[in-house]
């Protein structure tokens, strides 16, 4: 009893000293800019107008929350995250099952599939913009021409879809990597037994493979969500949020405020709203996924 009790206090102390570096650093990382952001969000502060300053009250929030572009941006953020998640999870699962099969040159094919994950977002956006989706010089326009179809002007007529395609291309390999590893740990005997019982490949996929992948899929969803909520480079390089606001997400909207308008007050208010959103997401979704992982 006694040792246990003392162990606990020692443990508490040890917990503190061990966690201190990471937690305090992250706290600083969160808090110092956060406090400054909060402070700025109540100030009249535009880099281009140094003479205008002073307490702004809730003006910045008022202008932001009544700005119709905020809601468009939030909608786009959700659409972007949602579609990429669906595409990478479904595509990743199918691709993982496929790449798990025996076929010629499997090792090299796998390397090819995972390659996009290593590419800088800026570079992949540039390549897609200038070489794949370019309506005059792009490969896709040329392919469309082969079939006698008119070239699609991707970034003008399907801006958000184009971004989803590019981001999916980047993140699909990540899903494949994780799901492939998970599939490899699937018990062969179980599959064999199911096959003996007359289950077809489709049934095996739905009743054995998919349940087995549940936890791995949770991991994919959680990690990707963290990164997808703040997608920026792909939009910046290709559509600049347009045409209109068609591909402006929350991160890009804040960028417009902060670095095109140089409205630090407004951008900070946007930042505060993004933080609140992030915490709501963290609270609900991440918690659900994390629970799923714990069990």
């Amino acid at each position: 009893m006694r040792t246990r009790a003392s162990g606990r206090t020692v443990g508490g102390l040890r917990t503190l000293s061990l966690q201190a570096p990471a937690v305090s650093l992250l706290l600083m990382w969160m808090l110092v800019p956060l406090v400054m952001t909060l402070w700025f969000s109540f100030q009249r502060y535009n880099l281009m107008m140094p003479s205008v300053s002073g307490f702004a009250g809730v003006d910045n929030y008022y202008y932001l929350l009544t700005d119709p572009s905020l809601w468009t941006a939030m909608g786009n953020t959700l659409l972007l995250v949602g579609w990429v998640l669906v595409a990478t999870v479904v595509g990743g699962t199918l691709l993982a099952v496929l790449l798990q099969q025996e076929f010629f040159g499997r090792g090299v094919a796998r390397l090819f599939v995972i390659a996009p994950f290593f590419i800088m977002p800026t570079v992949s956006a540039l390549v897609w913009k200038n070489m794949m989706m370019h309506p005059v010089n792009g490969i896709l326009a040329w392919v469309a021409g082969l079939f006698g179809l008119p070239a699609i002007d991707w970034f003008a007529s399907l801006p958000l879809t184009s971004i989803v395609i590019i981001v999916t291309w980047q993140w699909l390999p990540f899903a494949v990597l994780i799901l492939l590893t998970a599939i490899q740990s699937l018990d062969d005997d179980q599959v064999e037994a199911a096959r003996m019982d007359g289950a077809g490949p489709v049934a095996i996929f739905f009743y054995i493979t998919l349940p087995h992948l549940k936890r791995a899929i949770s991991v994919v969803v959680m990690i990707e969500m963290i990164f997808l909520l703040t997608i920026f480079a792909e939009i910046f390089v290709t559509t600049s949020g347009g045409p209109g606001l068609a591909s402006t997400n929350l991160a890009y909207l804040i960028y417009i405020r902060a670095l095109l308008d140089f409205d630090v007050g407004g951008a900070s208010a946007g930042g505060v709203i993004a933080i609140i959103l992030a915490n709501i997401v963290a609270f609900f979704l991440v918690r659900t996924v994390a629970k799923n992982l714990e069990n």
Partner: protein
Amino acid sequence: MSTSTSNSVAAASAAVSASRARRSVINKKLVLTLVAWTIALVMFFPIFWMILTSFKTEAEAIATPPSLFFTPSVEGYIEIQARADYFKYALNSVVISLGATLLALLIAIPSAYSMAFLPTKRTQGTLLWMLSTKMLPSVGVLLPVYLIFRDLGLLDSRTGLIIIYMLMNLPIVVWMLYTFFKDIPKDILEAGRMDGASTLQEIFHLLLPLTLPGIASTGLLCVILSWNEAFWSLNLTTSNAAPLTAYIASFSSPEGLFWAKLSAASTLAIAPILIFGWMTQKQMVRGLTFGAVK
């Protein structure tokens, strides 16, 4: 006789069906090969095309129909090297991503250790909070960070970027390490403690060797993420500490015919990390499952 006949018939039919089965296995394998390779090539095509374009002349680069066969030229590479010294940027990228990764691991290991072996009520909450820090768009805090960096003299320094990347990746690193550490049976550490090992000894002599694959894959992921980060590197560096993402930024807008030059710069920027990723993918995969696969 009859039994033997029936036996041999059975054997013959078994052989036939076996060979048929083998043939169908081979057919299936061929179909799979075709499908899988088609997908693999489609996935890899943009990268392949970029590398191919980098060896064309500017005129060939925008030719319609796209030319697949041409005399390779390194004109693009020579031209961009004359404009900006690739090796300076590459060295910065290497130093910064390795530095950030090592620092992140150093700080995350004790933290993940305590979460895994000395959990409290707040552990889950702390972990989730750490992850949520990653969802804040960087651009929202650019100005505060810029001001802090200016006052600390960290603008355009490798140290500055190492610190930023370390902080950016810390949540993921802590979380991944936590999932690996959690899988280690407590008894092993208990045994070590009985022998009078201190916490540090415990970590270095027992924990780290056991979880090395996990730590390695965490580090690899961290290197890749740091290498590819393009917002802070562009905004906090000017020239001394500028990594490859800043290098790319100077070739990213078209000036006349620029496809071959852009491709050459892009190829140079991604080549090291692509090769690194390919070489270490087995190692990375082993740990990327976040303890989700048991």
